[in-house]
């Protein structure tokens, strides 16, 4: 007898996959690019330029980021609406994590909307109006100008921390829901690994935020490479 998929089942599995494969992967790439700002504006802007040079960029952006992101976030908010929260009656760690995954998800829905409009599109009146897309060589200046405002820095720190937790714990949920990690002991170990990943991603992410405010972020500046000459000058010309 063949097994028939229900719509809910397929939508849930797609939700889980989109969270890991395009979005989780993209998060690491994004974090890496942001961290290059530790080494100064030129290095960061060159990396932003590298992204601009990716072949089929618009195609990748739409099908690899925007569509999965829209699906994952909208369906995620719908799933969150199903929750009958009862952490006060049943105050167990996993029940709190269950709630926290939904809270961070809903927060990230609004944060990412803000983040995209703020930097990718430059469309929030009163804030930055220069889209980073198409202005790679101004990328660092756009972000650091925006980070002069304390509440924006606070919002981005919250966004980075929420993403770190949501991605790390979401990865744990993925391996559980796909029947990879089954036993109680194995799950305990995997949760610990997820928490460790969340802490590392969170700390590194916060440093990436601060590296737009001060060279090398919160780290001692001796750890970072001294700003080097722009690649666009030292690198051989293309033709």
């Amino acid at each position, binding site marked *: 007898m063949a*097994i028939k998929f*229900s719509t*809910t089942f397929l939508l849930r*599995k797609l939700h889980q996959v989109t969270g890991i494969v395009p979005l989780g992967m993209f998060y690491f790439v994004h974090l890496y690019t942001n961290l290059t700002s530790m080494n100064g504006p030129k290095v960061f802007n060159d990396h932003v330029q590298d992204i601009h040079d990716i072949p089929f960029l618009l195609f990748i952006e739409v099908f690899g980021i925007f569509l999965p992101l829209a699906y994952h976030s909208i369906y995620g908010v719908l799933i969150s609406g199903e929750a009958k929260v009862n952490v006060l009656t*049943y105050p167990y760690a996993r029940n709190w994590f269950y709630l926290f995954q939904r809270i961070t998800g809903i927060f990230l829905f609004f944060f990412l909307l803000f983040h995209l409009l703020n930097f990718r599109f430059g469309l929030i009146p009163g804030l930055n109006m220069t889209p980073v897309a198409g202005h790679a060589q101004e990328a660092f200046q756009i972000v650091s100008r925006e980070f002069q405002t304390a509440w924006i820095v606070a919002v981005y720190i919250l966004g980075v921390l929420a993403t770190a937790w949501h991605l790390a714990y979401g990865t744990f949920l993925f391996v559980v829901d*796909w029947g990879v990690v089954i036993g109680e002991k194995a799950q305990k170990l995997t949760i610990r690994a997820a928490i460790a990943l969340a802490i590392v991603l969170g700390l590194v992410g916060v440093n990436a935020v601060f590296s737009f405010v001060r060279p090398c972020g919160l780290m001692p500046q001796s750890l970072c490479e001294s700003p080097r000459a722009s690649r666009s000058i030292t690198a051989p010309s293309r033709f």
Partner: protein
Amino acid sequence: MDHEKKRLTKPPQTIKFKIQRREKEGADARWETFEIPYRRNLNVISALMEIRKNPVTADGKQTTPPVWDMSCLEQVCGICTMVINGRVRQSCSALVDDLLIATGGNTVTLQPMTKFPNVRDLKVDRERMFDHLKQVKAWIDLDGTYDLGPGPHISSEVAHERYVYSRCMTCGCCLEACPQYSEDQYIGPQAIAQARLFNMHPVGKAEMDERLNGLMEENGIANCGNAQNCLQVCPMSIPLPRAIYETNRDITVNSLFGWLKK
């Protein structure tokens, strides 16, 4: 669990029972408080019986005796499940001394389970759980026209694991505590564990696809939110999350990646 009997050193003269009442399904709920003299070794059911003898509220108003379900009185039938001091459990095994020690007061609050239709007072209709057992075909087809002979051998590991799942008494604690369970949105841990019980049986395995199909429906296993409250509240200590995750693996292997075998 620690089963050492805890006793109140200075018991109160009387105990108050705050009970959520409802005349019939759909009627408004109201609260009534009863006061009965304290006595050693009371459990919630013997206290309810005491109230039933003389149904007068603490402020002297004559009322109807509260209605509740009970049967075995030894926590194996599951029917007396209710929400006691905010937490779901069986009322037969809820000892008044333990409840008073935990709260430090002299009031015990009783409510019906919130995730099932409330028939009257503390009585709920749990038929939905039995519909869910039908949905996952929680049985093994054995009746036939000829003798099937002795059953297949089951290893002691499998027998042991199946025994744990077979302890389920369909009480509804896991559904009451599950943040994903409400109405028919999610089939819930109990039916998934019973599907697992019969999928693990060497004869029952033959109908595994039918059970997985039942768990694949719109209210199926994919709605699990991994809060694992079921594990914490199950009075029979059934590893319900394990049943869910083992079944997740069966579904991943047999259906999600099933097309790879075609």
